[in-house]
């Protein structure tokens, strides 16, 4: 192994290393996202809960909410957009 190869190996190891600051930021982001999710109205929160957390297929969500699959997907997108707005407004506080 020559000098360059030796250094490349070490660079690879340091590249992905994440310090305590990174961990703190990540926890803060998760807390904010959780808060943003709680601030959504029931309809928007429920569709995200069903699609993201309850492991349901879009067809199954459609049958629970009496909606077509296309309508479920549109609602998921709208709910995500609202979540984004709330999340970004919390970030600026």
């Amino acid at each position, binding site marked *: 192994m020559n000098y360059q190869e030796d250094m490349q190996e070490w660079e690879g190891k340091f590249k992905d290393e994440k310090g305590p600051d990174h961990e703190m930021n*990540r926890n803060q*982001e*998760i807390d904010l*996202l*959780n808060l943003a*999710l*709680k601030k959504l109205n*029931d309809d928007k*929160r*429920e569709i*995200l*809960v069903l699609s*993201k*957390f*309850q*492991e*349901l297929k*879009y067809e*199954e969500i459609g*049958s*629970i*909410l009496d909606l077509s699959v*296309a309508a479920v*997907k*549109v609602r*998921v*997108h709208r709910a*995500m*957009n609202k*979540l*984004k707005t709330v*999340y970004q407004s919390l970030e600026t506080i």
Partner: protein
Amino acid sequence: MNREEASALWVDYIHNELGEEKAKEITAFLEANPEAREEFAVLGSLWTKMEDLPVPEPSSQMDLKFQAMLSSYEMAQSKRFDLVASVKSLLQPMFESKMALASIMLLIGLGVGYIINSENATNKQLTNLNAEVYEMKKMMMLTLLEQPRAMDRMKAVQISNEIKEPDEKIVDALLKTLNNDPNVNVRLVAAQSLAGLADNPIVRSGLIKSISNQTSPVIQNTLADIMISLMEKNAVGEFEKLLQQQNLDTLVKEKIKTTLETLI
């Protein structure tokens, strides 16, 4: 493609479920529209971050919708223990071959002749078949309860509803699900299934003991409703124990107080 059409495809986009043509269209659209590109990127990143969030509990409104879904599912399944359906499901894979179909028809013909000739034999056959179907459903239920997907565990509980006289093992599995399953919806369906078996003293005492173990307001509320419908005075002590919990939901606290007034 316009912004609205692109938005309608966002869910398929994040799941990589767009066809080749649509994927090309959306890529071209995003390249030409920096605002939409940014929106897709931010939403995608939030969607990924949501994986780190704790699972939120369904709201009371969701609970009602969920109940409605379960009721319609139960209605569809209401032909409990339909013998023809059971035999059909057992034989379904064999129908793929014409030869097998011919053999089955022959066997059915012979079977029918035999059944016509012997009333006792018929009863015996039906009893055996019933026992086999019972064992099969029981095995399926216990296997599904071990699955990691919440939907599978809910199906397991639904199967237990189709079993006419659940044995000790099934009751035990349902009680364990009520007390230990990590998913609140699975615990909820288990509580409802057990309520239907409340004539069994083991089930009744299991439901009572479970009251103070539960931390979810939805389940606490459901158990209160069940105890009122059973007018189960023995549950009073457990509800009083639950009232002592400091972090008890305010609405649940009110519900338990009215439950206690009804029971005492």
